[in-house]
């Protein structure tokens, strides 16, 4: 399992993370070591076993659909790196004129 065909640039792009060449090389080397012991799981027979996503005996948890006090607009925006009036300001996402 040591040589994992991990395309680090593709994965980093999916994660919206830009990595330097040096970081990519280091992380690739470390991940192939990690996959040595992650590979242990491949030898285990798990046929017929249900996956556990969480451990507590809870299914859907509902609450009453009631409006309660929440953060004010100013509180919600207090940590915004950039704001424009009552809005978060971000670079343009859609193309074209508005």
């Amino acid at each position, binding site marked *: 399992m040591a040589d994992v065909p991990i395309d680090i640039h593709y994965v*980093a792009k999916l994660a919206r*993370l830009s990595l330097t060449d040096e970081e990519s090389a280091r992380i690739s080397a470390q991940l192939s070591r*990690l996959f040595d012991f992650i590979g242990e799981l491949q030898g285990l027979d798990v046929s017929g076993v249900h*996956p556990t996503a969480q451990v*507590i005996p809870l299914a859907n948890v509902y609450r009453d659909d009631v409006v309660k006090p929440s953060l004010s607009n100013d509180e919600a925006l207090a940590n915004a790196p950039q704001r424009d009036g009552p809005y978060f300001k971000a*670079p343009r996402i859609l193309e074209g004129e508005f």
Partner: protein
Amino acid sequence: MISGHEIRDAVARRERSAVEVAQQALQAIDRLEPRLRAYISLLPERALSQARSVDARSRAGQDAGLLAGVPVAIKDLFCTKGDRTTCGSKILQDFRPPYSATVVERLEAAGAVVVGKTNMDEFAMGSSCENSAFFPTRNPWDEGRVPGGSSGGSASTVGAGCVPLAMGTDTGGSIREPASFCNVVGVKPTYGRVSRYGMIAFASSLDQAGPLSRDVRDAADALEVIAGFDPMDSTSVDVPVPRYADHLLEDLTGVRVGLVDDFDETIAADSGMTSLYQTAYRNIEALGATLVHVRLPHAKYGLATYYLIAPAECSSNLARYDGTRYGLRVDGGDDVYSMFERTRAEGFGPEVKRRIVLGTYALCSGYYDAYYVRAQKVRTLMKADFDLAFASCDVIACPAVSCPPFELGAKSQDPVAMYLMDYFTIPMSLAGIPAMSVPAGYVNGLPVGLQLVSPAFEEARMLGVAHAYEKATGHARRRAPQLSAR
């Protein structure tokens, strides 16, 4: 520093004022902080204002609370309204939450006095506190060694005697390992026992808050305060919270304590570690317990399972740090994606980046079934192991760690060696069951903890056994010699 329950009793009887206790704690922190660096932020104003209101309640003859006047340090992963909360990361270095975590609100409602926010591995990813974006914290038993992690600042400040109580979080061992390293009690409750509202998420199916303290009674009181259903966290479970302090045992007659046959002995290769744990089991037997052998055949797959599930959940949780609504933003021209990528490249440290890449990979289409789903199936097998083991014992006793605290830098270049630190603590995290570390003695003069484990929502059992063990052995009472020497 006396224990939290002694402070509470003295404040309730008005023999001491909460303000005076808070001032003493802040002074002790100031004196040791240049050496230990346990705190990212100190909160003297928050502390003194809370202490004054505790004293006012006490003077008016009102119940001042189960933790009245008890100084408590909070891991910098819990939101504190208006006070900087960094999670040990550059990406949140100026973040001031608009609300407090339920854990913090419940502590303050019970009269606890929050003195500061403690250092930690960035986003709770690490076992040494060296992954903090700001500075490493030192171990009070030897300043050249790590305090453990990720709740390293919390363990260090309690181990040094600056405060009797601190809050940590545990995803794969982040309360138990630093508790072991700093000779303090550390409790990871059942998943769902304590609300996660206002805790900054790392791996949402594993994260759980718990206390670190000088003795078992303080941990029992603190757990009673923070446990219980919270409408703000739909994964908190509505199971009654017992008065844990009423379940603390003096002798263990009739208690069946399980010893695990399946852990890899070579992980704790040092003969000093092996003989320390053998002595601990004999001490438990001498208190009247019956020792039985239990099997955990899938425990050895714990690390592999954890290092798929936890990074997968981390990569998903940390997607929110994109420079838009809060936290660091690094602009990158007009393009929103380059803003995301540059913000995250500059804001996250190496360990966080490594786990985001690993987790994103494990969730990629084509690999999802082979890695993530397979790991979740092994998690089912591991949980079934514990269910079977607890059919023949009340509490499991096993090592908390494979070694005493190590030197700063000793493992920081080798992530796999660092991950192995969690070998004994991860299986319980994956099964979601409660586990704790209690001081168990010393190897080469450095502290080591014993791990006790209970079935889900049966924290009272392990606390009961830990109390009898603590009282009989006295390991928790020993102070860090390095600090008292100077």
